[in-house]
């Protein structure tokens, strides 16, 4: 995923923009035509296209509408203002990162336990998997309500839901990774009579890093989703999830798309940060034997 040279990105971005505009015209046309018909005057195709690109509640807003909304929101208010989208992004990012941190700890700890203790593997792993098939949106409100009643509001319930979503890819990836060490190198540790912890720290962990980082990228994106999911039931509070909800509730498509774009940017930034960490921690091209 190197981005050497911006030409390919530019070409692709252009293609996407063209697609987006034509999609907007196509999807918005029926409603725009309705509106023009209602107005009663005769209209031409050009009128229709112009109308589709400037609707108040489009089915698909145009990129410039979204960009303008983002620009207004980001520059029109101070960063600490609830009308600034960056403020909401920060709220979500905080919950996502807290959840991600907890998820990494939980995920790695579970994986370590599963790899080290056979009791855990046979009895716990199936239930870890089952836990992920529980639809989070169904139990998120319960978690929010129950935690809210014992006095935890704000960040913590959201972080817990984010953690719930992101620990799983880490556990699965790490179990695989921790077991991927070459058997011969494991034998080597055995001849040194290295303790379990030492084998873990000096061999299993480093050998698992490629798997870990692949999982971390998925997990950090999942934690953003988790934070947003957690912001939905409590709709009235801050965060990108609240913006999505109210946008959706009041049919403000442009606002939904702005929130979505910010959420995507947040995810990509976090995934990119994990990628940077990976590059810093894993020395380049591991060649293997020659």
């Amino acid at each position, binding site marked *: 995923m190197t981005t050497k040279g911006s030409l390919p990105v530019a070409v692709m971005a252009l293609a996407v923009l063209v697609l987006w505009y034509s999609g907007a015209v196509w999807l918005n046309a029926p409603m725009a035509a309705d509106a023009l018909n209602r107005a009663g005057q005769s209209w031409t195709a050009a009128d229709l296209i112009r109308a589709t690109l400037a609707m108040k509640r489009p089915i698909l807003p145009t990129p410039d509408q979204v960009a303008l909304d983002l620009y207004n929101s980001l520059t029109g208010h101070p960063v600490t203002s609830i009308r600034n989208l960056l403020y909401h992004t920060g709220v979500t990012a905080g919950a996502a990162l807290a959840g991600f941190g907890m998820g990494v700890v939980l995920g790695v700890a579970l994986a370590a336990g599963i790899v080290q203790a056979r009791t855990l593997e046979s009895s716990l792993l199936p239930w870890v998997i089952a836990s992920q098939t529980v639809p989070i949106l169904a139990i998120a409100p319960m978690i929010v309500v129950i935690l809210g009643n014992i006095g935890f509001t704000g960040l913590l319930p959201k972080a817990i839901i984010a953690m719930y979503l992101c620990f799983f890819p880490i556990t699965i990836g790490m179990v695989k990774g921790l077991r991927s060490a070459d058997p011969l190198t494991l034998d080597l540790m055995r*001849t*040194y*009579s290295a303790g379990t912890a030492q084998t873990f720290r000096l061999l299993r962990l480093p050998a698992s890093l490629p798997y870990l980082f692949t999982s971390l990228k998925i997990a950090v994106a999942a934690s953003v989703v988790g934070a947003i999911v957690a912001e939905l039931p409590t709709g009235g509070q801050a965060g990108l999830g609240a913006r999505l909800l109210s946008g959706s509730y009041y049919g403000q498509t442009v606002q939904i798309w702005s929130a979505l774009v910010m959420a995507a940017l947040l995810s990509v930034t976090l995934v990119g940060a994990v990628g940077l960490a990976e590059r810093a921690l894993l020395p380049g091209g591991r060649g293997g034997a020659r």
Partner: protein
Amino acid sequence: MPAAQPAPLTLGPPATQAAPRTIVDIRNLTLTYQAADHPVYALSDVSLSISKGDFISLIGPSGCGKTTLMRVVADLEQPTSGEVTVNGMTPEQARLKRAYGYVFQAPALYPWRSVERNVTLPLEIMGLPKAERQARAREQLELVGLAGFERKFPWQLSGGMQQRVSIARALAFNPDLLLMDEPFGALDEITRDHLNLQLTRLWLSTRKTCIFVTHSIAEAVFLSTRIVVMSPRPGRILDVIDCDLPRERRLDIRESPEFQRIAHRVREGLMEGHSYDD
């Protein structure tokens, strides 16, 4: 080459010239690998006893069970039947006491560690302070001719260099029982001769017990006190040859008739097992 290094862990009182103590005792060892298609009989009824300070070479056709035998001694493989004791303990207990230094047949280096940090790995596990770890690593890397490569990663080394790193790693550990599986297989003759000499010196000065696998008859005769010749699969012991050359050996000993005699006997033993009709 420095003299005896500090030995942080010993298996017993220092051995005396007079009373050879049995260190490794193998009795009626049999090992069968179970596989999906048909089992492989790797070792069959092997008995061998190795005294403190012995230098034993295992020699035998490819695939005969040499590696397997060493792995059993090092508690990396469980025998199907038979018994092994190491210094009176089970191999597992000996392993937990960190009695073994094992040079595997493949280098088994960690790709994410530099050469130096590969060598210091066992020292880290033993909990040595950093300065000493580095000193020992540098000393051993110097010994195997890799000074200057401390910062490289394994994949930046040639095959022979990787193998030398793995030798340095085992030596830095300074174990009581040194198990070496074809350590010099990928080295040129000159480097190999050099390391052979270094190894005898080390062995003479520290009185380590060594078990050594090699395919070179000359190397086996040069290094060993006893040579164990094995048969093709299922590995049995065909012959145990005492190598009563003087303990202090120089390279030119290889021209002596006594050396040639022993080498010849080893070759005879080896041929016995083979069935090529070239």
